[in-house]
């Protein structure tokens, strides 16, 4: 699979995992986290994974988002099997097709809001003007146009989370992976989060989201 040109090999269709196994080595032995997990997230659908803490939800998303490699099993993006791709190919695939929103915002504090959002666009090869334009559009839609130049660390928690969502959406990803651990979120952040998603999902529902 060649991800060097986004349009050349755009994966069509669902994201699937088949019979995934994954474990962690710890001081007192190996912890088996995933035991033969299979699922399919179809285009245009929101697939939700729920479960108690420590059951492997995040691990499954890392594997689907090509941040980690399974012990065994397969991950498909469309018809392409991707779990064994070389590191560079996985990196390109993340940039081109996958948008992550982690439980925490994880913004780069040295950069402004707009610079944080522009990063994946610039990495994709967009010029600075078009990257900034796109980032500005995203900020406007999330109600943060006045905070564009503000350093990330000077934004409120809710604003930071919105910027993180905008950053994940900047490259118009084919697959959008959200991690929501409600236990650690404030009511305000949850509200912002839900509003943002509602706006975006209504616009982008034709794509495949997870």
């Amino acid at each position, binding site marked *: 699979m060649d991800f060097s040109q986004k349009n050349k090999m755009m994966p069509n269709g669902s994201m699937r995992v088949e019979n995934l196994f994954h474990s962690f080595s710890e001081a007192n032995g190996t912890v088996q986290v995933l035991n033969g997990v299979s699922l399919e997230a179809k285009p245009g659908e929101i697939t939700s994974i729920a479960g108690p803490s420590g059951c492997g939800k995040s691990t499954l998303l890392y594997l689907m988002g090509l941040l980690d490699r399974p012990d065994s099993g397969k991950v498909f993006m469309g018809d392409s099997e991707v779990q064994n791709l070389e590191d560079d190919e996985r*990196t390109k695939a993340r940039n081109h097709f996958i948008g992550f929103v982690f439980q925490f915002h*994880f913004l780069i504090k040295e*950069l402004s809001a707009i610079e944080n959002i522009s990063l994946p666009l610039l990495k994709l090869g967009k010029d600075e003007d078009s990257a900034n334009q796109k980032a500005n559009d995203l900020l406007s839609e999330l109600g943060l146009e006045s905070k564009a130049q503000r350093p990330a660390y000077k934004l409120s928690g809710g604003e930071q989370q919105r910027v993180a969502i905008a950053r994940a959406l900047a490259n118009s990803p084919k697959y959008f992976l959200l991690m929501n651990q409600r236990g650690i979120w404030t009511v305000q952040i949850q509200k912002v989060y839900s509003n943002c998603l509602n706006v975006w999902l209504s616009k982008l529902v034709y794509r495949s989201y997870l």
Partner: protein
Amino acid sequence: MLCFKLAWRFVIARKRPMFLSLAGIVFGVSFFVVTQAQTSGFEKFFIQTILGTNGALRISDRFQDTYGTVEQVDDDGDVRFLFHSREGSLYHEGVDQPSLIRDALADYPELMGVSEIMEGSAVLDTGFRRKSVVLNGIRWEDHLQSSDLNKQIIQGTINNFSSDQMGVILGSRISQRLGLKIGDRVSLVGGTGNLHLRVSAIFESGVSQIDKNRIYIHLITARSFLGSSHGGSVFQIALNEPSHAPGLAAQLQSALNHRVVSWQERERVWLDVFKALRFSSAITVSCILLLSGLGMFNVFAILVIEKTRDIAILRSMGFSRTDISAIFLWQGTIVLVAGITIGSLFAASGTYFISMIPLRIRGIFSTDSFVVNWDLNHYLWASCIAFVFVAVATWIPARRAARIEPAKIIRETL
């Protein structure tokens, strides 16, 4: 370019540690250049002095190789094994046939000037004081081609000397000791008798041994005084490229059958002293750069630890391991380039300032201020050494940063 921009933002966001890293490089580079400028400045000045005083090559005694024979003789008296071997050389003082040597030297285009010198010992007598001296009989036109005598004259002129067959040029210490000044008359005692000379000029080479012993008179006068009508002289030679002197000395020695000594061989002791000084100062100052490299390594190692989460996020966005390495290497490069630039400016200012400091030195050369050598190579060497230390100091943390597994970091952060 994106990696450079990120590196730039990371650098300016960490002003204090980056400033300390920068300061280490700035001081290392500037100290390196300043110390090298001084030591090589004095060395270069010393070389100029000795080349201007005694030339690049000196042709002196004629030698004759002596050979021996080894043979094995059978019981019946037949020689079964025989070979000749060079056993040594027999030296004859001075150049026997100066005109032949001069003709032979004309075939060497590398020679810039050739001066025949008649050397001898005598005593200068003012009537009140006497001093033994080494007289150098010269043809002044030739000698000016192979020495800096004209520049070394501090009183009188070479014209005074050229126009007076009985003129004498005195070393500065001789004139001081005997209380002689331009136009004074003095007797030269020794050789075939007494010679009445007039002081035409006073020179100062800076080499105390020369300034307190050497006098110059005309070659023809010297020959007459020493009773040597033709041979016994030495040749002093100036070269277009003095660094080629050892090779040319060997070539001339073999061709002329006369002992030929290069300035490098003649002044080996002092040259070795300067070399040792230059190396020891380079090593000492390199230690400053090494320490700043260690400091920088520390800064970058901590930076990688601090930035692990950002690295993981960048990786999740599509930054490759190479990009992550590049971000850290660019940070090192920014600090390095700034350090070398500022350090070079400091070095140039420091070198200029030091060259203005008054310092009177007489003995192996003559100077009234610090002698510095403006050489681009010092800046290049300082930059190279700084580059090596900074490259190592940033490459190791950059490599570590590139190895970070994003999933592991994100998982551990949550």
